[in-house]
Protein backbone atom coordinates (compact mmCIF):
# COMPACT_ATOMS: atom_id res chain seq x y z
CA UNK A 1 0.00 0.00 0.00
CA UNK A 2 2.85 2.33 0.81
CA UNK A 3 4.07 2.27 -2.74
CA UNK A 4 0.86 2.40 -4.59
CA UNK A 5 1.30 4.99 -7.31
CA UNK A 6 -1.33 7.65 -7.04
CA UNK A 7 -3.07 8.48 -10.28
CA UNK A 8 -1.69 11.96 -10.14
CA UNK A 9 1.86 10.63 -10.43
CA UNK A 10 1.49 10.18 -14.15
CA UNK A 11 2.85 13.62 -15.04
CA UNK A 12 6.01 13.07 -13.02
CA UNK A 13 6.70 9.62 -14.45
CA UNK A 14 6.15 10.93 -17.96
CA UNK A 15 8.44 13.88 -17.32
CA UNK A 16 11.15 11.56 -16.08
CA UNK A 17 10.83 9.33 -19.11
CA UNK A 18 10.89 12.27 -21.51
CA UNK A 19 13.98 13.75 -19.88
CA UNK A 20 15.73 10.39 -19.97
CA UNK A 21 14.87 10.12 -23.67
CA UNK A 22 16.27 13.59 -24.26
CA UNK A 23 19.41 12.49 -22.43
CA UNK A 24 19.57 9.56 -24.82
CA UNK A 25 19.42 11.96 -27.74
CA UNK A 26 22.24 13.99 -26.25
CA UNK A 27 24.42 11.00 -25.61
CA UNK A 28 24.05 7.82 -27.59
CA UNK A 29 25.49 5.60 -24.86
CA UNK A 30 23.08 6.87 -22.26
CA UNK A 31 21.27 3.60 -21.71
CA UNK A 32 24.37 1.39 -22.03
CA UNK A 33 25.04 -0.68 -18.96
CA UNK A 34 28.01 -2.83 -18.12
CA UNK A 35 29.45 -4.50 -15.07
CA UNK A 36 32.59 -2.83 -13.71
CA UNK A 37 34.27 -4.37 -10.64
CA UNK A 38 31.02 -6.10 -9.79
CA UNK A 39 29.06 -2.87 -9.98
CA UNK A 40 26.70 -1.67 -12.65
CA UNK A 41 28.16 1.16 -14.62
CA UNK A 42 26.55 3.61 -17.02
CA UNK A 43 24.96 7.03 -17.30
CA UNK A 44 21.59 5.76 -16.19
CA UNK A 45 23.17 4.38 -13.03
CA UNK A 46 24.83 7.76 -12.51
CA UNK A 47 21.44 9.42 -12.51
CA UNK A 48 20.29 7.19 -9.68
CA UNK A 49 23.59 7.30 -7.87
CA UNK A 50 24.16 11.05 -8.06
CA UNK A 51 20.52 11.72 -7.37
CA UNK A 52 20.74 9.79 -4.12
CA UNK A 53 21.62 12.65 -1.75
CA UNK A 54 18.87 14.91 -3.08
CA UNK A 55 16.45 11.98 -3.05
CA UNK A 56 17.25 11.39 0.62
CA UNK A 57 16.82 15.07 1.42
CA UNK A 58 13.54 15.07 -0.47
CA UNK A 59 12.30 12.07 1.52
CA UNK A 60 12.69 14.05 4.73
CA UNK A 61 11.68 17.36 3.25
CA UNK A 62 8.42 16.04 1.85
CA UNK A 63 7.14 15.27 5.34
CA UNK A 64 8.17 18.68 6.62
CA UNK A 65 6.49 20.38 3.71
CA UNK A 66 3.37 18.28 4.20
CA UNK A 67 3.02 19.87 7.65
CA UNK A 68 3.26 23.29 6.01
CA UNK A 69 6.85 23.71 7.05
CA UNK A 70 10.11 23.97 5.22
CA UNK A 71 13.65 23.06 6.21
CA UNK A 72 16.42 25.20 4.83
CA UNK A 73 19.06 23.66 7.06
CA UNK A 74 19.42 20.28 5.36
CA UNK A 75 22.52 21.31 3.42
CA UNK A 76 24.22 22.44 6.60
CA UNK A 77 23.20 19.26 8.40
CA UNK A 78 24.78 17.27 5.56
CA UNK A 79 27.99 19.19 6.09
CA UNK A 80 27.96 18.56 9.83
CA UNK A 81 27.30 14.84 9.62
CA UNK A 82 29.82 14.41 6.81
CA UNK A 83 32.43 16.23 8.83
CA UNK A 84 31.79 14.07 11.87
CA UNK A 85 31.77 10.81 9.94
CA UNK A 86 34.99 11.66 8.13
CA UNK A 87 36.76 12.79 11.30
CA UNK A 88 35.88 9.58 13.12
CA UNK A 89 36.23 7.15 10.23
CA UNK A 90 39.88 6.25 10.67
CA UNK A 91 39.97 6.23 14.43
CA UNK A 92 36.75 4.36 15.10
CA UNK A 93 34.79 1.50 13.63
CA UNK A 94 32.35 2.60 10.95
CA UNK A 95 29.20 1.98 13.01
CA UNK A 96 30.48 4.44 15.57
CA UNK A 97 31.28 7.06 12.96
CA UNK A 98 27.90 6.70 11.28
CA UNK A 99 26.01 6.57 14.56
CA UNK A 100 27.62 9.74 15.85
CA UNK A 101 26.96 11.48 12.53
CA UNK A 102 23.32 10.47 12.61
CA UNK A 103 23.15 11.45 16.28
CA UNK A 104 24.27 14.94 15.30
CA UNK A 105 21.50 14.97 12.71
CA UNK A 106 19.03 13.99 15.39
CA UNK A 107 20.11 16.92 17.55
CA UNK A 108 19.79 19.30 14.62
CA UNK A 109 16.29 18.04 13.97
CA UNK A 110 15.33 18.45 17.62
CA UNK A 111 16.57 22.00 17.52
CA UNK A 112 14.56 22.84 14.40
CA UNK A 113 11.51 21.11 15.77
CA UNK A 114 11.86 22.96 19.05
CA UNK A 115 12.01 26.33 17.31
CA UNK A 116 9.04 25.58 15.08
CA UNK A 117 6.74 23.61 17.34
CA UNK A 118 7.54 24.96 20.78
CA UNK A 119 8.70 28.52 20.20
CA UNK A 120 6.35 28.94 17.26
CA UNK A 121 8.90 30.58 14.95
CA UNK A 122 8.03 30.51 11.26
CA UNK A 123 9.78 27.48 9.75
CA UNK A 124 11.67 29.31 7.03
CA UNK A 125 13.36 31.61 9.55
CA UNK A 126 13.71 28.99 12.23
CA UNK A 127 15.65 26.72 9.91
CA UNK A 128 17.57 29.61 8.42
CA UNK A 129 19.30 29.89 11.78
CA UNK A 130 20.71 26.40 11.52
CA UNK A 131 21.41 26.86 7.83
CA UNK A 132 23.81 29.68 8.70
CA UNK A 133 25.21 28.42 11.96
CA UNK A 134 25.28 24.75 11.00
CA UNK A 135 27.79 25.23 8.23
CA UNK A 136 29.88 27.13 10.73
CA UNK A 137 29.73 24.17 13.06
CA UNK A 138 30.77 21.84 10.26
CA UNK A 139 33.71 24.07 9.41
CA UNK A 140 34.59 24.23 13.07
CA UNK A 141 34.86 20.46 13.09
CA UNK A 142 37.08 20.34 10.02
CA UNK A 143 38.72 23.73 10.66
CA UNK A 144 37.92 24.65 7.11
CA UNK A 145 40.02 21.84 5.66
CA UNK A 146 38.95 18.87 3.64
CA UNK A 147 39.27 16.05 6.13
CA UNK A 148 40.06 12.85 4.27
CA UNK A 149 39.88 9.29 5.47
CA UNK A 150 40.90 5.93 4.12
CA UNK A 151 38.53 3.54 5.86
CA UNK A 152 37.02 1.38 3.12
CA UNK A 153 34.10 0.55 5.40
CA UNK A 154 32.81 4.08 5.47
CA UNK A 155 33.70 4.57 1.83
CA UNK A 156 31.25 1.78 1.02
CA UNK A 157 28.40 4.18 1.74
CA UNK A 158 29.45 6.27 -1.24
CA UNK A 159 31.19 3.97 -3.65
CA UNK A 160 30.34 0.43 -2.59
CA UNK A 161 27.75 -1.82 -4.09
CA UNK A 162 25.73 -4.92 -3.43
CA UNK A 163 24.37 -7.18 -6.15
CA UNK A 164 25.82 -4.74 -8.63
CA UNK A 165 23.71 -1.89 -7.35
CA UNK A 166 25.55 1.13 -5.97
CA UNK A 167 25.28 1.61 -2.23
CA UNK A 168 23.69 5.10 -2.33
CA UNK A 169 20.87 3.75 -4.47
CA UNK A 170 20.32 0.92 -2.02
CA UNK A 171 20.34 3.34 0.88
CA UNK A 172 17.72 5.53 -0.78
CA UNK A 173 15.59 2.50 -1.57
CA UNK A 174 15.91 1.35 2.03
CA UNK A 175 15.05 4.75 3.42
CA UNK A 176 12.08 5.03 1.10
CA UNK A 177 10.90 1.64 2.30
CA UNK A 178 11.34 2.50 5.97
CA UNK A 179 9.75 5.93 5.61
CA UNK A 180 6.89 4.45 3.66
CA UNK A 181 6.30 1.77 6.25
CA UNK A 182 6.50 4.19 9.15
CA UNK A 183 4.34 6.84 7.56
CA UNK A 184 1.75 4.81 5.72
CA UNK A 185 1.91 1.74 7.91
CA UNK A 186 0.95 3.83 10.90
CA UNK A 187 -1.56 6.62 11.14
CA UNK A 188 1.21 9.19 10.87
CA UNK A 189 0.61 9.84 7.19
CA UNK A 190 -3.05 10.64 7.67
CA UNK A 191 -2.40 12.84 10.67
CA UNK A 192 0.39 14.72 8.90
CA UNK A 193 -1.85 15.36 5.93
CA UNK A 194 -4.62 16.51 8.23
CA UNK A 195 -2.35 18.82 10.20
CA UNK A 196 -0.88 20.25 7.03
CA UNK A 197 -4.30 20.73 5.49
CA UNK A 198 -5.86 22.50 8.45
CA UNK A 199 -3.89 22.69 11.67
CA UNK A 200 -6.67 24.24 13.73
CA UNK A 201 -9.24 21.69 12.71
CA UNK A 202 -6.82 18.83 13.34
CA UNK A 203 -5.98 20.12 16.76
CA UNK A 204 -9.67 20.37 17.60
CA UNK A 205 -10.00 16.77 16.48
CA UNK A 206 -7.49 15.73 19.09
CA UNK A 207 -4.40 15.40 16.90
CA UNK A 208 -1.25 16.15 18.90
CA UNK A 209 0.46 18.48 16.47
CA UNK A 210 3.52 19.58 18.37
CA UNK A 211 5.14 16.23 18.81
CA UNK A 212 4.38 15.32 15.24
CA UNK A 213 6.08 18.45 13.95
CA UNK A 214 9.14 17.80 16.04
CA UNK A 215 9.18 14.26 14.69
CA UNK A 216 9.11 15.29 11.05
CA UNK A 217 11.92 17.79 11.52
CA UNK A 218 13.94 15.12 13.27
CA UNK A 219 13.28 12.69 10.45
CA UNK A 220 14.22 15.32 7.89
CA UNK A 221 17.52 16.02 9.63
CA UNK A 222 18.22 12.30 9.96
CA UNK A 223 17.75 11.87 6.23
CA UNK A 224 20.01 14.86 5.65
CA UNK A 225 22.63 13.39 7.97
CA UNK A 226 22.51 10.14 6.04
CA UNK A 227 22.90 12.09 2.80
CA UNK A 228 25.88 13.84 4.38
CA UNK A 229 27.50 10.51 5.18
CA UNK A 230 27.02 9.40 1.58
CA UNK A 231 28.44 12.63 0.23
CA UNK A 232 31.50 12.34 2.46
CA UNK A 233 31.95 8.67 1.67
CA UNK A 234 31.73 9.38 -2.03
CA UNK A 235 34.82 11.62 -2.08
CA UNK A 236 36.38 9.90 0.94
CA UNK A 237 36.58 13.19 2.70
CA UNK A 238 34.48 15.88 4.30
CA UNK A 239 34.30 19.18 2.55
CA UNK A 240 32.49 21.27 5.11
CA UNK A 241 32.66 24.34 2.92
CA UNK A 242 30.80 22.88 -0.01
CA UNK A 243 29.03 19.71 1.04
CA UNK A 244 25.32 20.15 0.53
CA UNK A 245 25.68 23.78 -0.45
CA UNK A 246 22.34 24.99 -1.95
CA UNK A 247 21.03 21.43 -1.97
CA UNK A 248 18.08 22.53 0.16
CA UNK A 249 16.71 24.29 -2.88
CA UNK A 250 17.09 21.16 -5.00
CA UNK A 251 15.34 19.15 -2.32
CA UNK A 252 12.43 21.56 -2.13
CA UNK A 253 12.26 21.59 -5.90
CA UNK A 254 12.16 17.80 -5.96
CA UNK A 255 9.29 17.75 -3.48
CA UNK A 256 7.30 20.28 -5.46
CA UNK A 257 7.98 18.54 -8.76
CA UNK A 258 6.74 15.47 -6.92
CA UNK A 259 3.39 17.15 -6.62
CA UNK A 260 3.38 18.05 -2.92
CA UNK A 261 2.05 21.52 -2.27
CA UNK A 262 4.17 24.00 -0.37
CA UNK A 263 0.98 24.81 1.51
CA UNK A 264 0.98 21.42 3.14
CA UNK A 265 -1.44 18.55 3.05
CA UNK A 266 -1.30 15.65 0.66
CA UNK A 267 2.14 14.25 -0.03
CA UNK A 268 3.74 11.42 -1.88
CA UNK A 269 7.07 9.92 -0.88
CA UNK A 270 7.70 8.05 -4.05
CA UNK A 271 6.96 11.03 -6.25
CA UNK A 272 9.32 13.18 -4.21
CA UNK A 273 12.06 10.68 -5.02
CA UNK A 274 10.90 10.78 -8.61
CA UNK A 275 11.27 14.56 -8.48
CA UNK A 276 14.85 14.18 -7.30
CA UNK A 277 15.53 11.82 -10.19
CA UNK A 278 14.04 14.28 -12.65
CA UNK A 279 16.38 16.97 -11.39
CA UNK A 280 19.38 14.66 -11.57
CA UNK A 281 18.45 13.35 -15.02
CA UNK A 282 18.41 16.94 -16.15
CA UNK A 283 21.75 17.72 -14.52
CA UNK A 284 23.37 14.65 -16.02
CA UNK A 285 21.95 15.55 -19.40
CA UNK A 286 23.44 19.02 -19.13
CA UNK A 287 26.84 17.55 -18.27
CA UNK A 288 26.67 15.10 -21.18
CA UNK A 289 25.50 17.71 -23.65
CA UNK A 290 28.82 19.51 -23.91
CA UNK A 291 27.30 22.98 -23.80
CA UNK A 292 29.46 25.60 -22.10
CA UNK A 293 28.62 25.79 -18.39
CA UNK A 294 27.33 29.34 -18.69
CA UNK A 295 24.17 27.79 -20.12
CA UNK A 296 23.53 25.39 -17.22
CA UNK A 297 21.24 27.59 -15.16
CA UNK A 298 19.14 28.79 -18.06
CA UNK A 299 18.59 25.23 -19.29
CA UNK A 300 17.71 24.15 -15.76
CA UNK A 301 15.18 26.94 -15.38
CA UNK A 302 13.54 26.08 -18.67
CA UNK A 303 13.24 22.38 -17.87
CA UNK A 304 11.85 23.03 -14.40
CA UNK A 305 9.25 25.42 -15.74
CA UNK A 306 8.17 23.02 -18.45
CA UNK A 307 7.89 20.08 -16.06
CA UNK A 308 5.79 22.12 -13.65
CA UNK A 309 3.64 23.62 -16.36
CA UNK A 310 2.81 20.13 -17.54
CA UNK A 311 1.49 19.35 -14.07
CA UNK A 312 -0.52 22.51 -13.81
CA UNK A 313 -4.24 21.69 -13.76
CA UNK A 314 -4.89 25.02 -15.39
CA UNK A 315 -2.90 24.01 -18.44
CA UNK A 316 -4.83 20.80 -18.93
CA UNK A 317 -7.99 22.88 -18.55
CA UNK A 318 -6.82 25.23 -21.27
CA UNK A 319 -5.89 22.36 -23.54
CA UNK A 320 -9.30 20.78 -23.01
CA UNK A 321 -11.02 24.07 -23.82
CA UNK A 322 -8.91 24.45 -26.91
CA UNK A 323 -9.88 20.96 -28.07
CA UNK A 324 -13.52 21.68 -27.37
CA UNK A 325 -13.33 24.91 -29.30
CA UNK A 326 -11.78 23.17 -32.29
CA UNK A 327 -14.18 20.27 -32.25
Amino acid sequence: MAFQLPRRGLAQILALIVILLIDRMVSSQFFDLRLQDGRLFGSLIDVFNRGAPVALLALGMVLVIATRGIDLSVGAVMAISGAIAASLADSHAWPVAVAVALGAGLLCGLWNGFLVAVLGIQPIVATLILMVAGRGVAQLITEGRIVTFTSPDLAWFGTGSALGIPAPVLIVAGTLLVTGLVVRGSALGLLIEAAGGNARASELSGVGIRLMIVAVYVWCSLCAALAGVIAAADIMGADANNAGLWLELDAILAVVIGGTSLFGGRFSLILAVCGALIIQAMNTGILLSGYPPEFNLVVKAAVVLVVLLLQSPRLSGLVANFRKARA
Partner: protein
Amino acid sequence: QLTVGFSQIGSESGWRAAETTVSKGEAAKRSVNLKIADAQQKQENQIKAIRSFVAQGVDAIFLAPVVSTGWDAVLKEAKEAKIPVILLDRDIDPSGKDLYLTAVTSDSVHEGEVAGDWLAKTVGDKQCSIVELQGTVGASVAANRKKGFDTAIAKHANLKIVRSQTGDFTRAKGKEVMESFIKAEGGGKTICAVYAHNDDMMVGAIQAMKEAGLKPGKDILTVSIDAVPDIFKAMVAGEANATVELTPNMAGPALDALTAYKDKGTTPLKWIQTESKLYTAADDPQKAYDSKKGLGY
Protein backbone atom coordinates in the same frame (compact mmCIF):
# COMPACT_ATOMS: atom_id res chain seq x y z
CA GLN B 1 54.32 46.21 17.29
CA LEU B 2 52.42 46.55 14.04
CA THR B 3 48.71 45.89 13.83
CA VAL B 4 47.51 44.67 10.45
CA GLY B 5 43.93 44.17 9.44
CA PHE B 6 43.38 41.33 6.98
CA SER B 7 40.15 41.18 5.04
CA GLN B 8 39.98 37.54 4.06
CA ILE B 9 37.42 36.24 1.59
CA GLY B 10 36.06 33.43 3.67
CA SER B 11 36.59 29.75 3.85
CA GLU B 12 35.50 28.15 0.64
CA SER B 13 38.34 25.69 0.08
CA GLY B 14 41.20 23.95 1.78
CA TRP B 15 43.63 26.25 0.05
CA ARG B 16 41.93 29.29 1.55
CA ALA B 17 42.08 27.74 5.00
CA ALA B 18 45.79 27.12 4.50
CA GLU B 19 46.34 30.71 3.44
CA THR B 20 44.68 31.89 6.63
CA THR B 21 46.72 29.53 8.79
CA VAL B 22 50.00 30.41 7.05
CA SER B 23 49.25 34.13 7.31
CA LYS B 24 48.72 33.80 11.04
CA GLY B 25 51.97 31.88 11.32
CA GLU B 26 53.93 34.42 9.30
CA ALA B 27 52.53 37.27 11.37
CA ALA B 28 53.39 35.51 14.61
CA LYS B 29 56.91 34.89 13.33
CA ARG B 30 57.35 38.64 12.89
CA SER B 31 55.34 39.41 16.03
CA VAL B 32 52.79 41.37 14.05
CA ASN B 33 49.27 41.61 15.43
CA LEU B 34 47.05 40.26 12.63
CA LYS B 35 43.29 40.93 12.82
CA ILE B 36 41.44 38.74 10.38
CA ALA B 37 37.93 39.67 9.26
CA ASP B 38 36.12 36.97 7.39
CA ALA B 39 33.83 38.18 4.59
CA GLN B 40 31.84 35.00 3.94
CA GLN B 41 32.49 35.40 0.20
CA LYS B 42 30.72 38.75 0.07
CA GLN B 43 32.26 41.92 -1.28
CA GLU B 44 29.89 44.04 0.82
CA ASN B 45 31.35 42.45 3.92
CA GLN B 46 34.90 43.15 2.74
CA ILE B 47 34.06 46.79 2.17
CA LYS B 48 32.50 46.97 5.62
CA ALA B 49 35.55 45.29 7.13
CA ILE B 50 37.96 47.73 5.51
CA ARG B 51 35.88 50.65 6.74
CA SER B 52 35.95 49.24 10.22
CA PHE B 53 39.76 48.74 10.03
CA VAL B 54 40.08 52.38 9.03
CA ALA B 55 37.89 53.37 11.94
CA GLN B 56 40.02 51.30 14.30
CA GLY B 57 43.19 52.92 12.98
CA VAL B 58 45.27 49.85 12.06
CA ASP B 59 48.82 50.26 10.71
CA ALA B 60 48.15 48.45 7.45
CA ILE B 61 45.41 46.58 5.65
CA PHE B 62 45.77 43.32 3.76
CA LEU B 63 43.03 42.64 1.30
CA ALA B 64 42.33 39.39 -0.51
CA PRO B 65 39.68 40.75 -2.88
CA VAL B 66 36.78 38.47 -3.70
CA VAL B 67 36.34 40.25 -7.05
CA SER B 68 38.69 42.53 -8.90
CA THR B 69 36.37 45.51 -9.24
CA GLY B 70 34.64 47.95 -7.00
CA TRP B 71 37.38 48.90 -4.55
CA ASP B 72 38.16 52.47 -5.54
CA ALA B 73 35.92 54.26 -3.09
CA VAL B 74 36.81 52.29 -0.01
CA LEU B 75 40.54 52.18 -0.81
CA LYS B 76 40.43 55.94 -1.23
CA GLU B 77 39.14 56.15 2.32
CA ALA B 78 42.07 54.06 3.51
CA LYS B 79 44.48 56.22 1.57
CA GLU B 80 43.05 59.39 3.09
CA ALA B 81 43.60 57.82 6.49
CA LYS B 82 47.18 57.11 5.40
CA ILE B 83 46.89 53.40 5.91
CA PRO B 84 48.85 51.38 3.36
CA VAL B 85 46.94 48.58 1.65
CA ILE B 86 48.53 45.42 0.33
CA LEU B 87 46.59 43.10 -1.96
CA LEU B 88 46.95 39.37 -1.54
CA ASP B 89 46.51 36.63 -4.13
CA ARG B 90 44.53 38.73 -6.59
CA ASP B 91 44.99 42.07 -8.31
CA ILE B 92 42.22 44.62 -8.63
CA ASP B 93 40.80 46.46 -11.59
CA PRO B 94 41.86 48.93 -12.85
CA SER B 95 45.24 47.74 -11.62
CA GLY B 96 48.47 49.60 -10.97
CA LYS B 97 46.70 52.52 -9.32
CA ASP B 98 48.31 54.24 -6.39
CA LEU B 99 45.46 53.10 -4.17
CA TYR B 100 47.56 50.29 -2.82
CA LEU B 101 51.17 49.81 -1.87
CA THR B 102 51.79 46.53 -3.59
CA ALA B 103 50.06 43.36 -4.68
CA VAL B 104 51.44 39.97 -3.69
CA THR B 105 49.80 37.67 -6.16
CA SER B 106 50.35 34.78 -8.39
CA ASP B 107 49.62 35.17 -12.06
CA SER B 108 46.75 32.80 -12.65
CA VAL B 109 47.02 33.10 -16.43
CA HIS B 110 50.60 32.03 -16.06
CA GLU B 111 49.59 29.08 -13.90
CA GLY B 112 47.37 27.88 -16.71
CA GLU B 113 50.22 28.30 -19.15
CA VAL B 114 52.60 26.29 -17.00
CA ALA B 115 50.07 23.50 -16.86
CA GLY B 116 49.48 23.65 -20.62
CA ASP B 117 53.18 23.72 -21.43
CA TRP B 118 53.81 20.69 -19.25
CA LEU B 119 51.08 18.76 -20.99
CA ALA B 120 52.31 19.74 -24.45
CA LYS B 121 55.83 18.65 -23.58
CA THR B 122 54.71 15.36 -22.04
CA VAL B 123 52.38 14.38 -24.87
CA GLY B 124 54.78 15.25 -27.61
CA ASP B 125 53.38 14.80 -31.11
CA LYS B 126 50.64 12.34 -30.18
CA GLN B 127 47.03 13.30 -30.80
CA CYS B 128 45.53 14.19 -27.43
CA SER B 129 41.92 14.91 -26.45
CA ILE B 130 41.75 16.87 -23.23
CA VAL B 131 38.81 17.27 -20.90
CA GLU B 132 38.72 20.32 -18.70
CA LEU B 133 37.20 20.81 -15.26
CA GLN B 134 36.54 24.50 -14.88
CA GLY B 135 36.25 26.44 -11.68
CA THR B 136 33.12 28.29 -10.61
CA VAL B 137 31.44 30.06 -13.48
CA GLY B 138 32.18 33.73 -13.18
CA ALA B 139 35.19 33.39 -10.89
CA SER B 140 38.12 35.29 -12.39
CA VAL B 141 40.66 32.65 -11.38
CA ALA B 142 38.73 30.11 -13.41
CA ALA B 143 38.63 32.39 -16.44
CA ASN B 144 42.35 33.15 -16.19
CA ARG B 145 43.44 29.57 -15.70
CA LYS B 146 41.39 28.65 -18.73
CA LYS B 147 42.86 31.48 -20.75
CA GLY B 148 46.45 30.57 -19.84
CA PHE B 149 45.97 26.91 -20.63
CA ASP B 150 44.22 27.69 -23.92
CA THR B 151 47.10 29.92 -25.01
CA ALA B 152 49.66 27.27 -24.15
CA ILE B 153 47.97 24.49 -26.12
CA ALA B 154 46.97 26.71 -29.02
CA LYS B 155 50.53 26.34 -30.24
CA HIS B 156 50.08 22.58 -30.59
CA ALA B 157 47.61 21.38 -33.16
CA ASN B 158 47.57 17.86 -31.69
CA LEU B 159 46.13 19.05 -28.37
CA LYS B 160 42.45 19.70 -28.27
CA ILE B 161 39.95 20.32 -25.45
CA VAL B 162 36.98 18.09 -26.26
CA ARG B 163 34.87 18.71 -23.20
CA SER B 164 34.77 21.46 -20.64
CA GLN B 165 32.36 21.82 -17.76
CA THR B 166 32.36 23.52 -14.42
CA GLY B 167 33.17 21.48 -11.33
CA ASP B 168 32.67 24.46 -9.01
CA PHE B 169 36.18 23.95 -7.56
CA THR B 170 34.86 21.09 -5.42
CA ARG B 171 35.73 17.44 -5.15
CA ALA B 172 32.18 16.21 -5.32
CA LYS B 173 31.35 18.13 -8.47
CA GLY B 174 34.76 17.27 -9.97
CA LYS B 175 33.95 13.64 -9.53
CA GLU B 176 30.44 13.91 -10.91
CA VAL B 177 31.52 15.87 -13.96
CA MET B 178 34.39 13.48 -14.65
CA GLU B 179 32.01 10.55 -14.45
CA SER B 180 29.86 12.04 -17.15
CA PHE B 181 32.90 12.93 -19.27
CA ILE B 182 33.96 9.30 -19.12
CA LYS B 183 30.54 8.12 -20.26
CA ALA B 184 30.35 10.73 -22.99
CA GLU B 185 33.81 9.84 -24.30
CA GLY B 186 33.29 6.17 -24.88
CA GLY B 187 34.10 4.95 -21.40
CA GLY B 188 37.05 7.28 -21.18
CA LYS B 189 39.12 5.49 -23.78
CA THR B 190 39.38 8.50 -25.99
CA ILE B 191 40.43 10.84 -23.19
CA CYS B 192 44.15 11.39 -23.09
CA ALA B 193 44.43 14.04 -20.39
CA VAL B 194 42.46 15.89 -17.73
CA TYR B 195 43.11 19.49 -16.84
CA ALA B 196 41.46 20.76 -13.67
CA HIS B 197 41.45 24.36 -12.48
CA ASN B 198 42.23 23.15 -9.02
CA ASP B 199 43.52 20.06 -7.28
CA ASP B 200 40.35 19.38 -5.35
CA MET B 201 38.38 18.75 -8.52
CA MET B 202 41.24 16.59 -9.76
CA VAL B 203 41.18 14.46 -6.63
CA GLY B 204 37.49 13.87 -7.30
CA ALA B 205 38.16 13.16 -10.97
CA ILE B 206 40.85 10.62 -10.07
CA GLN B 207 38.31 8.71 -7.98
CA ALA B 208 35.87 8.77 -10.87
CA MET B 209 38.51 7.37 -13.23
CA LYS B 210 39.45 4.63 -10.82
CA GLU B 211 35.83 3.63 -10.31
CA ALA B 212 35.43 3.44 -14.09
CA GLY B 213 38.33 1.01 -14.24
CA LEU B 214 40.73 3.50 -15.74
CA LYS B 215 44.23 4.18 -14.52
CA PRO B 216 44.67 7.86 -13.83
CA GLY B 217 48.24 8.97 -14.28
CA LYS B 218 48.85 6.21 -16.80
CA ASP B 219 45.86 5.80 -19.16
CA ILE B 220 44.92 9.39 -18.63
CA LEU B 221 47.34 12.17 -17.79
CA THR B 222 46.41 14.64 -15.10
CA VAL B 223 47.49 18.20 -14.57
CA SER B 224 45.97 20.63 -12.14
CA ILE B 225 46.77 23.71 -10.09
CA ASP B 226 47.24 24.65 -6.41
CA ALA B 227 49.55 21.91 -5.09
CA VAL B 228 47.45 20.86 -2.12
CA PRO B 229 48.74 17.92 -0.05
CA ASP B 230 46.21 15.40 -1.31
CA ILE B 231 47.37 15.71 -4.89
CA PHE B 232 50.87 14.76 -3.74
CA LYS B 233 49.42 11.74 -2.07
CA ALA B 234 47.90 10.79 -5.41
CA MET B 235 51.22 11.45 -7.08
CA VAL B 236 52.96 9.13 -4.67
CA ALA B 237 50.44 6.48 -5.63
CA GLY B 238 51.15 7.17 -9.29
CA GLU B 239 47.62 8.44 -9.91
CA ALA B 240 48.43 12.06 -10.65
CA ASN B 241 51.06 13.52 -12.90
CA ALA B 242 51.52 17.20 -12.35
CA THR B 243 50.39 20.19 -10.35
CA VAL B 244 51.28 23.85 -10.41
CA GLU B 245 51.84 25.43 -7.06
CA LEU B 246 49.87 28.36 -5.81
CA THR B 247 51.59 29.20 -2.59
CA PRO B 248 49.40 29.90 0.41
CA ASN B 249 52.17 32.10 1.75
CA MET B 250 51.20 35.48 0.40
CA ALA B 251 51.34 37.16 3.77
CA GLY B 252 55.06 36.47 4.29
CA PRO B 253 56.30 38.55 1.34
CA ALA B 254 53.62 41.12 2.07
CA LEU B 255 54.77 41.50 5.67
CA ASP B 256 58.39 41.76 4.53
CA ALA B 257 57.50 44.52 2.10
CA LEU B 258 55.47 46.23 4.78
CA THR B 259 58.23 46.21 7.42
CA ALA B 260 60.74 47.46 4.86
CA TYR B 261 58.35 50.26 3.97
CA LYS B 262 57.62 51.18 7.55
CA ASP B 263 61.18 50.92 8.86
CA LYS B 264 63.29 52.11 5.98
CA GLY B 265 60.76 53.77 3.74
CA THR B 266 61.56 51.55 0.77
CA THR B 267 58.67 51.49 -1.67
CA PRO B 268 58.23 47.95 -2.89
CA LEU B 269 57.53 46.95 -6.47
CA LYS B 270 53.88 47.38 -7.51
CA TRP B 271 53.62 43.64 -8.07
CA ILE B 272 55.34 40.93 -6.10
CA GLN B 273 54.69 37.81 -8.13
CA THR B 274 54.80 34.49 -6.33
CA GLU B 275 56.34 31.56 -8.06
CA SER B 276 54.11 29.18 -10.03
CA LYS B 277 56.24 26.10 -9.47
CA LEU B 278 55.51 22.93 -11.34
CA TYR B 279 55.56 19.67 -9.39
CA THR B 280 55.65 16.29 -11.06
CA ALA B 281 56.28 12.76 -9.85
CA ALA B 282 59.97 13.50 -10.32
CA ASP B 283 59.95 16.11 -7.56
CA ASP B 284 59.69 13.79 -4.57
CA PRO B 285 55.99 14.14 -3.92
CA GLN B 286 56.28 12.39 -0.56
CA LYS B 287 58.51 15.16 0.72
CA ALA B 288 56.24 17.83 -0.66
CA TYR B 289 53.30 16.11 1.02
CA ASP B 290 55.05 15.97 4.37
CA SER B 291 56.01 19.61 4.22
CA LYS B 292 52.51 20.73 3.31
CA LYS B 293 50.26 18.56 5.36
CA GLY B 294 50.67 20.61 8.52
CA LEU B 295 49.73 23.89 6.88
CA GLY B 296 46.01 23.63 7.45
CA TYR B 297 44.87 22.62 3.97
